[in-house]
């Protein structure tokens, strides 16, 4: 199974008195490929920021490779949701990715760093864009640049917030293929509100809506996410081979949905 990269225990968070996260427990292991799905406002971005130590939970325990998040987060490659970059900012693709190699104050970039940037650009299929200004990129190209910036650190975990939002399905597929390639080197975890974005490649799924329901490895194929979403949701993806999930543990008869999905995949 490998090493445990992230360990969260009994995390609680609230915003202006409203509970956002309750009793979250999550372990991310080496080489995991996990999607955390949940509705908007379900606490997905909050959870990511807590893992990274960007916000403090009300209570709970967080370790990244045994360290506090502020120290351990250097081992994580992070992709923000719509990072809100100023597209007029005067910087080239190459320099954006190079930034990911930041090694501390008074550490200049080394030839090794530059090599790592070239490798990341090649992995993401954007080496031709290297000297281009970020303002000249399409949405999908920018997303690849930002993923390159996250993986150029050679992190143990690539943690992404809605990496597939605002990307057309064709591009989503090619990004999935990239993830499938990358996961040999690092764990990959992302959050999304889009059930259709869950592809066959994913091995673990958790649902988040204030609480986290963990569906674990290779769980059957189908079900409903109504607990997480608060209303019935059919897990259907268009054109993407997919699997669906069991009901959450509150409902012991979680198999009930099985028959529904099967017709579709056959």
């Amino acid at each position, binding site marked *: 199974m490998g090493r445990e990269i992230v360990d969260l225990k009994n995390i609680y968070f609230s915003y202006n008195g409203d509970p956002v996260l309750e009793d979250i427990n999550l372990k991310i292991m080496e080489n995991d490929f996990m999607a955390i799905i949940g509705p908007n406002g379900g606490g997905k971005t909050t959870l990511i920021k807590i893992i*990274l130590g*960007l916000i403090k939970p009300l209570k709970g325990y967080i370790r990244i490779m045994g360290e506090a998040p502020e120290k351990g*987060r*250097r081992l*994580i490659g*992070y992709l*923000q949701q719509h*990072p809100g*970059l*100023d597209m*007029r*900012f*005067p*910087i*080239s693709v190459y*320099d*954006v990715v190079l*930034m*990911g190699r*930041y090694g*501390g*104050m*008074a550490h200049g*970039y080394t030839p090794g760093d530059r090599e790592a940037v070239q490798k990341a650009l090649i992995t993401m299929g954007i080496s031709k864009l290297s000297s281009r*200004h970020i*303002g000249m990129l399409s949405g999908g190209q920018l997303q690849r640049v930002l993923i390159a*910036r996250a993986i150029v*650190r050679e992190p143990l975990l690539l943690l992404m917030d809605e990496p597939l939002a605002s990307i057309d399905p064709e591009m989503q597929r090619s990004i999935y293929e990239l993830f499938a390639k990358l996961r040999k080197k690092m764990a990959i975890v992302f959050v999304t509100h889009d059930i259709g974005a869950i592809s066959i490649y994913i091995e673990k799924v958790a649902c988040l809506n204030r609480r986290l329901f963990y569906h674990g490895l290779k769980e059957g194929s189908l079900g409903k996410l109504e607990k997480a979403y608060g209303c019935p949701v059919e897990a259907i993806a268009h054109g993407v081979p997919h699997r669906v999930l069991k009901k959450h543990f509150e409902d012991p008869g979680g198999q009930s949905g099985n028959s529904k999905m099967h017709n579709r995949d056959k």
Partner: protein
Amino acid sequence: MMIELFQYTFIRNAIIAAVLVNIACGIVGTFVVVKRIALLSGGISHATFGGIGLGYFLGINPIIAAVPFSMASAFAIGALSKKGKLSEDTAIGIFWAAGMALGIIFINLTPGYAPDLFSYLFGNILTIPITDLFIMLALDLVVIILVAVFYKELLAISLDEEFSAVIGIPTNVFYIMLLLMVSLSVVLLIRIVGIILVIALLTIPAAICRQFTYNIKSIIISSIITGIILTLGGLFISYMLDMASGATIILLLTLAFILSFGVKKILTLLRIKRHRGTQADRQ
């Protein structure tokens, strides 16, 4: 006529001041423009008027009194807005007005008349004493050293603070440092264009130059040169037409900014035309 001008000490001082000030301004102004903190810089410059008043009150060089005052305002605006207790524009507005008010009260409390008060508000490049040139030189050196040493960090937090935090940059420290550099530049500029016009000289050269390159270092260097040329040009025009130097410099900057838009447009059209041309050649 030009040679005659150079013989006056005050003109020589003005030219040296124009060069020194634009060095710090080109560097800091570039970060102000790309990080979009022009309004914040305006708040710092107006708050600095409190320091000028304090200088009068204590009977010391107002520019020297302005340095700690400006830095304290920059620190307070930055810290308050980063804590999230107060939105940034509110913090800016409060300090903007409170600093001006303090300055006025200090000057009220000072016995006698404040003869050159007007020059702190609107600048007067022709009255710069030699001691202020040394202060400018020292502040230039501080800005140059800080930016040379922490260029990577300043670039990273200007582009993306959240990502910078995750890769291990103490973002708040560098954000405050950037604001402190803004406050030093403001103090430098007060002599030239005055508190009220500082923001233009800080931002317009970088705003002109960023249209023509997307390399930050090129923007910095070209902003310094643009700033020097336009400041000296404004100074010359104001001398010839006998107008207020600070205001003339700012209007010349504004004119150059408008012209640069036209130049950029023409360059873009030419590029499109050339591109079409090469496509036609291929066919």
